[in-house]
């Protein structure tokens, strides 16, 4: 760990102007700093800002403070009742101890668990642009099959953001100049392309203050995560689904996927394959075809392609029953 300056912010404005890397729960950043994968000159501690409440809005949606811990969010009765997919995704993530500490805003920004990203002796374009990608040609069991580039095949490791993507969450930020913006989660993350080190659209000093969930929809909720052990393991594949069936026809479907891409993945073609159709294996296979169109394995992660197909089909069966 390099020496760094530390400042505690007493307001959102002060935090955005402090000119440092934000830290809240620190469950990811501190690990990365110890390994010098991240070497911030200055940490701005935002953990005491007044951003730890969950409020109902007039439109029926929820506004979640960026500092609400994962465990609190998962246990909130309104979340359990109306955004079950989010509660389930949260509880599928990390471990009890980590969920107590990890925050909503921080979890959105969790960095990849790529082994080569974590090892400073390895080439990694995300950690050190231009140093190559050792995951390609190496061990890539946990890596992406969709939206990859020849520069990076890392995955976003989160569960919560996958559910939020299915729920069309909006990320509310404040910039150093005081401007606030509302970024739909679908526009928030970036694919790796030639700049895998740039993972989202946040600008320097821009702080996530809230996450807004739109008014709840009526569909059935499901979050299913496939992993190498029953807890404290990142998703090999996960699916967040909110699906409505009326009179034997799928009338609405929102699906997002984890463990397959550089960001919580959502593809309108998957939903288009479902909406207006009767639930059937043929329909589900068409959805899987749409999801996996162009999917590419890199050797040790090839199994994710059949795994994703099977899991999606079983999940759709369950959620349309």
């Amino acid at each position: 760990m390099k020496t760094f300056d530390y400042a505690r912010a007493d307001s959102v404005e002060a935090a955005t102007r402090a000119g440092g890397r934000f830290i809240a729960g620190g469950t990811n950043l501190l690990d990365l700093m110890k390994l010098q994968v991240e070497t911030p000159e200055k940490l701005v501690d935002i953990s005491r800002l007044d951003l730890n409440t969950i409020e109902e809005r007039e439109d029926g949606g929820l506004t979640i403070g960026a500092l609400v811990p994962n465990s609190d969010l998962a246990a909130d009765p309104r979340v359990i009742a109306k955004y079950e997919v989010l509660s389930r995704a949260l509880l599928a993530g990390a471990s009890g101890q980590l969920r107590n500490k990890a925050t909503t805003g921080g979890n959105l920004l969790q960095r990849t668990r790529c082994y080569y990203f974590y090892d400073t002796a390895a080439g990694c374009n995300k950690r050190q642009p231009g140093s190559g990608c050792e995951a390609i040609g190496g061990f890539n069991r946990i890596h992406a099959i969709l939206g990859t580039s020849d520069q990076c095949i890392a995955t976003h490791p989160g569960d919560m953001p996958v559910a939020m993507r299915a729920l069309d969450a909006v990320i509310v930020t404040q910039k150093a100049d005081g401007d606030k913006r509302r970024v739909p989660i679908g526009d928030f993350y970036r694919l790796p392309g030639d700049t895998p080190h740039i993972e989202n659209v946040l600008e320097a000093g821009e702080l996530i203050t809230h996450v807004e969930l739109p008014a709840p929809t009526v569909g059935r909720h499901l979050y299913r995560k496939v992993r190498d052990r029953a807890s404290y393991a990142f998703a090999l594949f996960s699916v967040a689904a909110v699906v409505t069936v009326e009179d034997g026809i799928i009338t609405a479907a929102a699906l997002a996927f984890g463990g397959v891409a550089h960001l919580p993945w959502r593809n309108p073609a998957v939903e288009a394959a479902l909406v207006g159709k009767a639930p059937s294996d043929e329909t589900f296979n068409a959805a899987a075809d749409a999801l996996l169109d162009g999917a590419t394995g890199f050797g040790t992660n090839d199994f994710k392609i059949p795994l994703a197909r099977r899991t999606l089909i079983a999940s759709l069966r369950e959620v349309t029953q």
Partner: protein
Amino acid sequence: MTLINKVLGREDTRSLTMNEAHPHSWLDAGTQGVIGKPLDRVEGPLKVSGQATYAAEYPVERLSYGVLVRAPFGSGKITDVVADAARSLPGVIDVITDYPSFIRNPQQGGEKKAPTQGVEKVDYHGEIVAIVVAETFEAARDAAAQVKVEYEPREGSYVFAAHRDQADRPPPDQIPPHMAKGDLDTAMADAAFSIDETYTTPSQNSAAMEPHASIAEWKDGALVLHGSYQMVASDQMQLAAALGVGKDKVRIISRYVGGGFGSKLGIAPESVAAAIAAKRLDRPVKVAMARQQVFDATVRRSNTEQRIRLAADAHGKLTGLGHETLASNLPGEDYFEPAGIGTQFAYAAENRLIDHKLVRLNWLLSGSMRAPGEAVGMLALEAAMDELAYKVGIDPIELRRRNEPAIDPTNDVPFSTRQLIPCLDKGADLFGWSDRKAEPAGDRRGEWLHGTGVAAAVRSNMLQKSSATVELTGEGRAIVSTDMTDIGTGTYTILAQIAAETLGLPLESVTVQLGDGAAPPSAGSGGSWGAGSSGSSVYLACEGLREKLAKAMGVEVEAMTLKDGRAIAENRAVDIAELAGDGMTVTGTIAPGKQEKLHRQASYGAHFAEVKVNVTTGEVRVERMLGVFSAGRILNEKTARSQCLGGMTFGIGAALTEELVHDPRNGKVVNRDLAEYHVPVNADIPQIEVAFLDERDIHANPIHAKGIGELGISGAGAAIANAIYHATGVRVRDYPITCDKLLAELPAV
């Protein structure tokens, strides 16, 4: 029996070499009633309150902090260690390299010589080549990241499969690499039923909670090293040899060890680096290896490729048994994973072949990890036995019953005790085995396929020379001193129980002092021999004290009863404290003898597992597990049970999750933290039941106990693999059985 009672004032000794059976044991008298009881660990309160001092926790004046620097390449020669930038950082004291003296890799357990030294030529990625010492840990860690190791690369061997054809047979050691009897090929050709399958297991890491750590301090030319080590006496010799000093100049103190599982049997790089730095700087140096360094540069269990051949007659009786293993290690290191060791005596078969060969790779050292040999060997053998049972069409327990040997089939000697079949039978009863339907893939509940499996457990028992001193004070307290270690197993507690039972003292009147190399040398913790060996030395010392007490009381020792701090004989009762006078001390020493050659000594068990496999994803969840074990006298039912629970949990890891991955391009450990090296977590572990059979082994040692620490892992993973087959009809022979390996064989969704 060689029994020497040497009276030299207070320096009394009592020694026993196990040449003959030793039927008598004071522990059977049951007078004090503490032996065998499920007592809490005596050091438990210290541990849970943070007062137990682990290696890196000793307060030392003028302490400096060392952080190790690795070679960031898989094979090559260092041309320079560029450290100017690191040295100039605030708080940095020095960056030290010593190519000839730094150790290339840790030493194996029990060796008396230094491990392979010399790091200018690097043989594996992550080899420790320098140490940065600073006033603070943080400064040292930052500086270590600024050190640049420059090198000329060399070609290396990084892929097991690419070099498996160049395997060589290691020289005979304690365990012979090769054993053959009869003609296996003919037996296979003539067999009514046969199995010829290859099973593979990956590299594994002990992943002990406490990383390897040392504080080195030189005083008057002698080194005191607080370290996290399992075998203090031989570790001292290794360290002295590595440093080029007399063995009397090194004292290791290892009072508490936060898990070892074999990874701390021999000295690791941090001890030598800390000692060299401390000497050069004339300051104490502390080094705790980072978790990633533990994965990179300590010791792994070797990966294995095991070919099992079983030849059976029409009734399933084995006529031939072959177990050929390929393991891997660094060039020049002859330790081989003895996967066939349990196969020597597990089952009868006239024609036998057991073989081990080594593939030389530029991967970190391989060495002993919990139940070296059986832990992975039985993953293969016991899965093959399950396959054979299906072929013959009989129950897997019945198959084992039909192949139960009357005597040790390798050495033609009797078993000291052998209760494999009673373990299987009792387990079958407790588990409800008779309800099982044999055919696989017959129990689907929604998306889950359920199945059950069984496997035998065998684990060789060993006795090692071990000494302990017991002092009986004038206050009526017993103080046990030995360099024996407690690596979380319960040594403190069982030694206190043995002393309390033998001397008729309440447990609270016994103090056990462990892990100090200045105390009498013990067997250390390894090979499951700790309790039997160290426990016997304490027992012998106490037996000597009984004689002294009888003499002081003026009665025959056989006529004296010791209970609750009182000696009772001839209608008199005297306080032991009074009889002890100014204190009396006896040093007990146990040594192995002819008994281990005259009998096959081993502990046995049976594992039963129920699993469910998700038919969509191939994810496996263990629903319940049962282990039934016979291991001689159980010294403490609670710590023994915990040992078995831990072993079975390791077995779940070996079956389902644990795999140390080496990068094919440079041999580097890819998954070098606990997030990505998957040991089972709580959610993976179901209800586990443990039962013990009553047993005494009079051929093992005077306390009649046998090793248990490694028995629980032996065969455990195979029971799970067999249950997975029963659930799915899919036989995966490549451990761990992760979902991707099942996926292709599962029914379409």
